[in-house]
Every structure is written in structure tokens, then in C-alpha cells.
């Protein structure tokens, strides 16, 4: 029980978020930028940060009446300026061509009225297609905008501004994972360091919105590699695959990862918020783009990552970070998890050739160098009798040779029995004996003594259990087997 509470300290709760992080680090003016999408857009843009393009904004009912609907492109997003939680957003994907009869009718009507005729101009039959395939007409849009202006979607219903924004294009990479909508990446930035991130994928449940509360998928991201780890759907419930498919949610490598982190730290700098969530989407053509910034980032990101945020924030608190690059680097280094370590291991492996000089330390402290064959065909390492004697295993060999081995039938099926029997009977008598090895080879089977040795291969210390055999007539006094090659990659050209 005590342990449970001890461990729970790594988790960030609502109380600590508000009191320890938002209150002291997010000044009021900065929060205003985060809450006001249009202001945020212009502040970011002024500072050279990519944001989605603004098409038009509508502030009053008069502006709404005067609005020229023909300026709207085929696809766009309509948003409330002070909306939150993704409410009040309408996204359309295409314009519906008016059906022929109505078009010709309205054309004649307009011609009669003396208005200019043309393809769908100013036509109230105009309609756009929404994510779910349903149509939305200009009247519907007008009504929605009236609601926005009236403050239906803003906190405490303050009058608001409606704006049209360019719709982002879905990156092909995300297509199989996404239901309608556009996935986005939430990065929590604190003290110029990106500390935690998640990928949010719209689902059917969330009706195409990348919002966890509405049922979107959230996948945790390893900070250094940008690879997804664990995932949840909605506010809880861990899942492995995209529902209804076999697509794994882990191991997705997010494109432009470093750019995304850089962008998020820049956004923090510009906004003046000390602790924030930055939402970034990737456009097919323009790459990573900031959607919005959030002064009150939610806590579910901890579940997606199966990691507490508080611990990470505390590690970053008070660090002196001067540049954006440094912040990104610190975040990647501190919060890169197991995946990265694995990769480092792979890339950090020493590369050796098929024959290498290895170094032994003799009992008198001198080092000797011998040529060894790097042999992935052998399981364990073998050394020559002469070398073994030099290394001080003379008594071992002497005692070993005095034992009568003829009683053992060297067949693969007897191996474990032989070993057990031999060790029980003789291990005590033979100095330094570690084990015995039963070797089956084309040149005949043999029972060999095994001793513990240590050598240096390419300056890596390898401790090994090597068997001793007569290699007098062979080219190499040592072969290094698979068992001792785990830390190396073999390049046959070397």
C-alpha cells in the first residue's frame, strides 16, 4: 500500500497541474493567446511559425449577411474562435454541384432579375459535403455561424467570432489509421523542453474528431524516436490495434518528428506559456502545422504513454535551456525510452571482421595477442591446448587427461546425461573446471573441458566459457563462437 502511494508521485493530477504548473508558469496574457485562436494564429505567424491558412472571419450578424459565399473554396473548416474541446467545428470536404433542374431554374430566375448568371454563383442551393457524407447548405452554415457569434460554443457564452480555415490534407501515412478527419500530435512542453507526446487518431466513435473525450485513439510516443508505444481509446481502455482492423498502434514512426518537437518548443517561446500542450497536424504538402495551443492540457496523455507526467516535469523544472535546439535535444535524450535504447544498442555494436586479433592477459600480468577466427557456425568459443597452458590451465588439462572417458558414449541424445555424470564424479578433482562440453563434429565427437576466460575483442571485454581442444594443426589457435558475439556485428569484408 505504501509502495502504491510512493509510486503514484510520478503521476500528475488536476490539483498539482493547476497549482504547481499552470498557475506559476502561465501568465494571464499568454493564456489569452491560447484561448483566442485567431490571435494565436497571428502571433505564431508573425514569428514565422506555420499555421493553417485563414480564409475569412465573421464577427457580426451584419458581416454574416454581407458575406460572399463564393469566396469559399471546396473544402474548409469552420470554427468558433474561442471554442474548446473541438466543439462547434464543421469540416467540409467538397462542394456539391447543384443538381441540373434546380440550377437551370435558378439561372432563369436570376436572369429575369437582371443578375449575372454563371455556374453556381451566390446560389442558395449551394451545398458542401461533410465528413459523414451529409450535406450542409449555406442556410445551415449561416445558422451555425449565428450560434457561434452568439457564443454558444465559447466558455461562459461570451459573444464570439466565426472563422473559415483551410482544410488540411491527410498524409497518406496516416490514412489506414484514420477515420475521416485528420490525426494530430499533442506535445506537452515545459520550460522549453518537450516532455511528453501523443498521437491522436480520429475514430468512428469520435465522428472524425481527434479528441480523446469524444472517443478518439491516443497513442503514446517515445520522445527520442517519435515511435508510438501504447495506446488508449477514449478516456480509458488500452488497445493494441485500430478497432476493427489488425493495424498495430505501436511502432508507428511519426514523420517529421524532430520538426514537430522543434515547432512545439518554438510555439511555447512565442506564446509565453510556461506549461502547455501544442497540437500539431501534418499536412500532405506543407508538413507539420500548428493547429492550436492549449494552456490547460489534459491529463490523459499519461495513460497513452503509461507514464506519469509529474516526474518528467520535475526533471525539467529549473533547467537552463537557452535555445530551441537544446530544448528539443534534452527532451529527446531524457524521455526517449526503451525503443531508443534498443536502437542505440544496434547502432552501437562494434563491427568485427571474420578474423580478429584478440588479447589475453597472462597470469603474470602480460598481455598476449592471438589471431582468432570469428565463427558464427560455432556456438561456443574454443581455445588451443597450448594457449590454455599459457593462460594457466595446465593443471586442469593434466587432471582432465587422467580421467578415463571411454565409458561415455558420445551421442547427441546422451549429452546432458554425460555432462551431469561427469561433473558429479570429477568436478571437484579438476582445478578451474567450469563445465564440460560435448562437441559433435564431422571430424569426430569429443568431450572437452570448459574453463572461464576473459579476452578483449576490439577493446570490448568478453568473458566467456571456452572449451579447450587441440588446435595445433589449425590456422587459428582460437575460434570465437556465437555465444560471445552478441555485442558485435560481423562484416565479412573487413
Amino acid at each position: 500500500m505504501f509502495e502504491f502511494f510512493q509510486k503514484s508521485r510520478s503521476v500528475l493530477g488536476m490539483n498539482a497541474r493547476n497549482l504547481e504548473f499552470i498557475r506559476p508558469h502561465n501568465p494571464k496574457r499568454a493564456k489569452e493567446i491560447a484561448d483566442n485562436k485567431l490571435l494565436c494564429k497571428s502571433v505564431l505567424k508573425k514569428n514565422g511559425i506555420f499555421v493553417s491558412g485563414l480564409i475569412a472571419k465573421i464577427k457580426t450578424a451584419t458581416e454574416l449577411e454581407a458575406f460572399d459565399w463564393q469566396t469559399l473554396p471546396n473544402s474548409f473548416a469552420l470554427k468558433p474562435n474561442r471554442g474548446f474541446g473541438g466543439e462547434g467545428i464543421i469540416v467540409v470536404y467538397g462542394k456539391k454541384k447543384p443538381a441540373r433542374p434546380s440550377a437551370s431554374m435558378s439561372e432563369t430566375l436570376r436572369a429575369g432579375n437582371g443578375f449575372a448568371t454563371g455556374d453556381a454563383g451566390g446560389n442558395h442551393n449551394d451545398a458542401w459535403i461533410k465528413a459523414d457524407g451529409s450535406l450542409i447548405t449555406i442556410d445551415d452554415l449561416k445558422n451555425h455561424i449565428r450560434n457561434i457569434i452568439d457564443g454558444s460554443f465559447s466558455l461562459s457564452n461570451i459573444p464570439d467570432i466565426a472563422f473559415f480555415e483551410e482544410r488540411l490534407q491527410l498524409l497518406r501515412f496516416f490514412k489506414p489509421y484514420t477515420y475521416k478527419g485528420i490525426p494530430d500530435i499533442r506535445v506537452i512542453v515545459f520550460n522549453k523542453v518537450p516532455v511528453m507526446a501523443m498521437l491522436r487518431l480520429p475514430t468512428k466513435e469520435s465522428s472524425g474528431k481527434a479528441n480523446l473525450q469524444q472517443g478518439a485513439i491516443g497513442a503514446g510516443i517515445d520522445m527520442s524516436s517519435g515511435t508510438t508505444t501504447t495506446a488508449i481509446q477514449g478516456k480509458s481502455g488500452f488497445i493494441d490495434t485500430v478497432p476493427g482492423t489488425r493495424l498495430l498502434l505501436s511502432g508507428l514512426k511519426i514523420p517529421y518528428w524532430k520538426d514537430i518537437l522543434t515547432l512545439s518548443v518554438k510555439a511555447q517561446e512565442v506564446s509565453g506559456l510556461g506549461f502547455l500542450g501544442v497540437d500539431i497536424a501534418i499536412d500532405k504538402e506543407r508538413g507539420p502545422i500548428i493547429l492550436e495551443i492549449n494552456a490547460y492540457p489534459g491529463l490523459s496523455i499519461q495513460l497513452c504513454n503509461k507514464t506519469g507526467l509529474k516526474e518528467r516535469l520535475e526533471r525539467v523544472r529549473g533547467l537552463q535551456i537557452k535555445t530551441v535546439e537544446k530544448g528539443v535535444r534534452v527532451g529527446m535524450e531524457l524521455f526517449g525510452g526503451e525503443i531508443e535504447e534498443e536502437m542505440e544498442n544496434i547502432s552501437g555494436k562494434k563491427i568485427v571482421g571474420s578474423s580478429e586479433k584478440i588479447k589475453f592477459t597472462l597470469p603474470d600480468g602480460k598481455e598476449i595477442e592471438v589471431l582468432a577466427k570469428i565463427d558464427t557456425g560455432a556456438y561456443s568459443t574454443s581455445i588451443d591446448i597450448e594457449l590454455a597452458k599459457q593462460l594457466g590451465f595446465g593443471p586442469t588439462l593434466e587432471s582432465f587427461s587422467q580421467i578415463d572417458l571411454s565409458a561415455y558414449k558420445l551421442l547427441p541424445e546422451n549429452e546432458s546425461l554425460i555432462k551431469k555424470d561427469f561433473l558429479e564424479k570429477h568436478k571437484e578433482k579438476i582445478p578451474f573446471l567450469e563445465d564440460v562440453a560435448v562437441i559433435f563434429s564431422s571430424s569426430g565427437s569429443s568431450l572437452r573441458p570448459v574453463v572461464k576466460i576473459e579476452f578483449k575483442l576490439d577493446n570490448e571485454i568478453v568473458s566467456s566459457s571456452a572449451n579447450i581442444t587441440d588446435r595445433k594443426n589449425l590456422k587459428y589457435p582460437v575460434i570465437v563462437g556465437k555465444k560471445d558475439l552478441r555485442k558485435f556485428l560481423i562484416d565479412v569484408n573487413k
Partner: protein
Amino acid sequence: MENDIHPIISFFIREGVPLKTVILILMLPLIATLIALLRQVFGVKAFGIYTPLIITFAFLATNGIRYGIFIFVAVILSGMIMRFVLKPFRLLYLPRVAIMISVVAMVILIMLTLGGSLKRTGLAAVSIFPILIMITLVEKFIAVQIEKGNKIAFKLALETLVISIAGYYLASWEFLIKFLAIYPWTILFTLPINVLLGKWTGLRVSEYLRFREIIKKS
């Protein structure tokens, strides 16, 4: 008991403030503190602090808590149903709330009449102010529904109900009423308690549950 009453309360009574009123006012900080405690330490959210507080007093003012609960549930249910009914009309916010309040008011009126005709006079005898308070609850409910969705609005309504019931029993606890009459100054203890709550940065009980997977793992 009469003799034990604190002089200051006797003074209030002498000046014409009814004892019941004095006790209710003294209960106010206690219930408010209870609500703050439930939010900060247990994670029971409800509709802020005002709504559960006022509903608690509405319960106290109805004769018998079950009528109060009955009206509360009726208000929330009709609010939920009305939202679906009104959705296709795409109305602006305030007119929409006005319609809802009208409908809820009608529903309550019908309920009271039905209750009366079924000889459940207790329901009809509920005084008008608690009823009015609960009818206006519907606005809070709709606001949350728009901001956070149906599920959360329903959850918060339920939490509000639970807190209000707890508050009701706290405020009608004989022992506590007597205690406050004798030691009215003890309510000042709510101040340091709230200062502590206001500085409390630990996880809430609900968060221990929510993040148990992480805590178990790390």
C-alpha cells in the same frame, strides 16, 4: 439545550432572527467546505460549488428529501429529452434554454397536480422556491451538455445529486445542529481547512483509480 445555546445565538434570536435561519446560515460554510473537500481530495466534481449548495438548501426546504430527489431527477430527465427534441431546430442558446425551462416548468406543474390527485399531498405541498431553484438547474445542465457532451453532463448531474444528498443529511443531523448552536465559532475552522485544500497538490481519489495502470507499472 436551551440553556447551553451560545450567547451570540441567543442574541440573534432576541433580535428576531429565527433559530432555524441562524443554523442554516451557519451550515453554509460547512457544506461549502464539504463540496470543496469532495472535489479536491475525492475528485467528485458536480456542477461547481453553487449548484450543489443551492440544491442542498432546496432539499432542506422541501418537506422530505424524496420529493426533492424526485423533482431533481425529473428536471434532468426532461432536460435530456428536450435536447434531442430541440436539436433539429438549431436554435440559438438563450431561446433554446428558455424553451427548456418552460417545458420543465410544465412537467413539474403536471407532476405536482398528478401527485395531488393521487393523494400524495407531500409533493404538492413543496414550497415554490425550492421548485424554482431546481427548474433553473436545467440551464446548468444544458451548458455542461454543450461544453462536455451528454455523458459528462449526466455524470456531473449524478454527482451533484449525491453531494446534495450528503449535504442534506449533514445539515439535518441533530447532533451537528445542537453542536453549532452551542459552539457557533467552530465554523471558523473551515477557513484553515479550506486554505489547506487550496494548497493540496496530491492526487485525487478518482485519479488514483484513473491512473492505476501507470501507478502499478512504474
